């Protein structure tokens, strides 16, 4: 029994981190229809901000988090202005963005590697390698804190989207850009702000990741497929779905790893994706595509 609890705890702990990593991706897709393959590489950027804060000034990554978020959000603004503002008008928009963000991922990776070398990094605040023990069950502190911070951020985001006037504008733009424009929404601004928020979340996730995983510039490829699976599984653009998928799958993967071996735990994410797509093509929380 303790084993089972332990596995669930570990799954949940990892799930919290994935949830934040995936939610920015989900937001950007939801609002902008951008499948942001560069998201993981931008998370990496956030992780480097936290790393240098820790290394040079001994700043705790949790404190560096807002800084990382702001720096990355600014990067988001820049990217949007340079690239996506023009693209928004293109008919080939959604497939173009897949490739453009792929290109951005390469640029970010190359940039980070040039600036910081390809050496692996990790920040080591005391809690990163500590745990609470409850009986024989332990809860890793690092992941626990990361999970709690990420849940708080996601909740704040959800409330913002649901109740603020700007949140309304974001949703309207998501559904019908032209109509939103006609209703007096400055759609360009909406795109800009939501993109900045999404990338800012990547920055925040980066700060958390910096003490949960070790990282180096090209590592983001390892995250892409997992994060994307979560987003698709949850239903493209549904942040709630992404969060749920992150938790459910992490726990599931922990079980698979425990019973069938670590090799197969990664497979859980992809197989689950296929099964879900077979039974429910729109994902767990996605809306049914409209017909006729």
């Amino acid at each position: 029994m303790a084993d089972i609890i332990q596995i669930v705890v570990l799954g949940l702990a990892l799930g919290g981190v994935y949830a934040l990593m995936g939610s920015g991706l989900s937001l950007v897709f939801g609002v902008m229809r951008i499948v942001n393959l560069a998201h993981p590489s931008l998370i990496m950027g956030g992780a480097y901000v936290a790393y240098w804060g820790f290394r040079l000034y001994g700043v705790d990554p949790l404190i560096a988090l807002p800084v990382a978020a702001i720096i990355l959000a600014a990067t988001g603004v820049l990217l949007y202005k340079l690239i996506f503002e023009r693209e928004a008008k293109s008919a080939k928009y959604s497939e173009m963005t897949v490739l453009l963000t792929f290109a951005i991922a390469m640029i970010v990776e190359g940039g980070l590697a040039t600036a910081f070398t390809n050496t692996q990094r990790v920040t080591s605040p005391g809690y990163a390698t500590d745990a609470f023990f409850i009986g024989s069950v332990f809860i890793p502190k690092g992941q626990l804190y990361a999970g709690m911070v990420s849940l708080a951020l996601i909740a704040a985001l959800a409330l913002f989207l649901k109740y603020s006037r700007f949140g309304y504008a974001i949703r309207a733009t998501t559904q019908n850009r032209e109509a939103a424009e006609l209703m007096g929404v400055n759609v360009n601004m909406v795109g800009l702000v939501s993109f900045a928020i999404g990338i800012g979340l990547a920055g925040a996730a980066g700060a958390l990741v910096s003490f949960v995983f070790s990282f180096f510039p090209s590592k983001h490829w390892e995250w892409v497929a997992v994060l994307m699976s979560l987003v698709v599984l949850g239903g493209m653009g549904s942040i709630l779905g992404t969060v749920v998928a992150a938790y459910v799958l992490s726990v599931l993967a922990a079980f698979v790893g425990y019973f069938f071996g670590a090799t197969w735990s990664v497979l859980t994410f992809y197989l689950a994706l296929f099964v879900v797509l077979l039974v429910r093509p729109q994902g767990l929380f996605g809306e049914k595509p409209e017909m006729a």
Partner: protein
Amino acid sequence: MSNIGETSDILAQRKTYNAGLSQVSDKSRATWFPLLLLALLTALPALQLVGNYNYLIHLVLYTLCYVVMASGWNILGGYAGYISLGHNVFFAVGGYFAGMVFARLGISTIIIAPIAGLVAAALGYLIGLITLRVRGPSFIISSLALVMIFRIAFENWHFVGGAAGVSLQANDMDVQWAKLPYYYAFLAMAAFALWASYRIRHSKFGLGLRAISKDEVKAESAGIDTRFYKVLACAISAFFVGMAGAVWGEYLTYIRPNIFLVILISVNMVLMCILGGKGTVAGPALGAVLIVAFNEFFVATLGASAVNIMATGVIMAVALMFFPNGIIGTLAKHRKLPRILNWD
């Protein structure tokens, strides 16, 4: 208040107005160009008689390999609009099938290639039945997941060497000529792929695929068996990619999961098609030439480093932003496409 003239007048005016707006399509194309290209490429290895052009041959061969794969990809990704980041699964299946036959039975992969292609096509058919039920980003991501699944499967399949892979016997020809069998195999496959690509694009099947890429509900109600069309397109495109994989394995003398199942390969296929012009015949070929050339250029000038990755990213971004329909597509749209590149 303005006034209007006679009814017939208006009707006549309307005709001229309409004529002014209507589009004329440029139908001229230069068939001689691809044929000339084929002839030149056939003759190319003769250079070996006057010096060491091994690397040039290697590069052309490498490009041809990608021409086959990108053209194959284009049938599903370009015509039917299902962007797959998972086509290297077929590359791997073709490579492993032919490679293992070669390793165990000693039959050259060049002979096995069409069969390997069929094996890949059969797999493509099955996979298509499952994944082609979803569209857009979901499809892209599920194809990505497919690569991961196959990779993990191959890495744990000990019969084919697991993660470490299998080393294949190199042929015992003189170094100078050793590449030629593969070179001609790829040249033949590339020519075949382009021809098939042309035929399909102009067939009813191709038209149906293009309809599917735009609006599946409409296509279905137009009497097109969309499910079958899609899956067949997937199988055909898997066939080409699988064939290329078969010969590629023997050429490298090594098969292992991370030679075939790396994201970069499928990304290359996608990129070549988009850069050259997705859904056109010449696009994938042109894209393959350009991407391989960029790559070589960077290796030659910047050496290989992080800067290289960054530069590749920049080139890619710029190309996408300024040639949204690919080079062929964008030029054609502005009616600036040179005739020699109009293979459609």
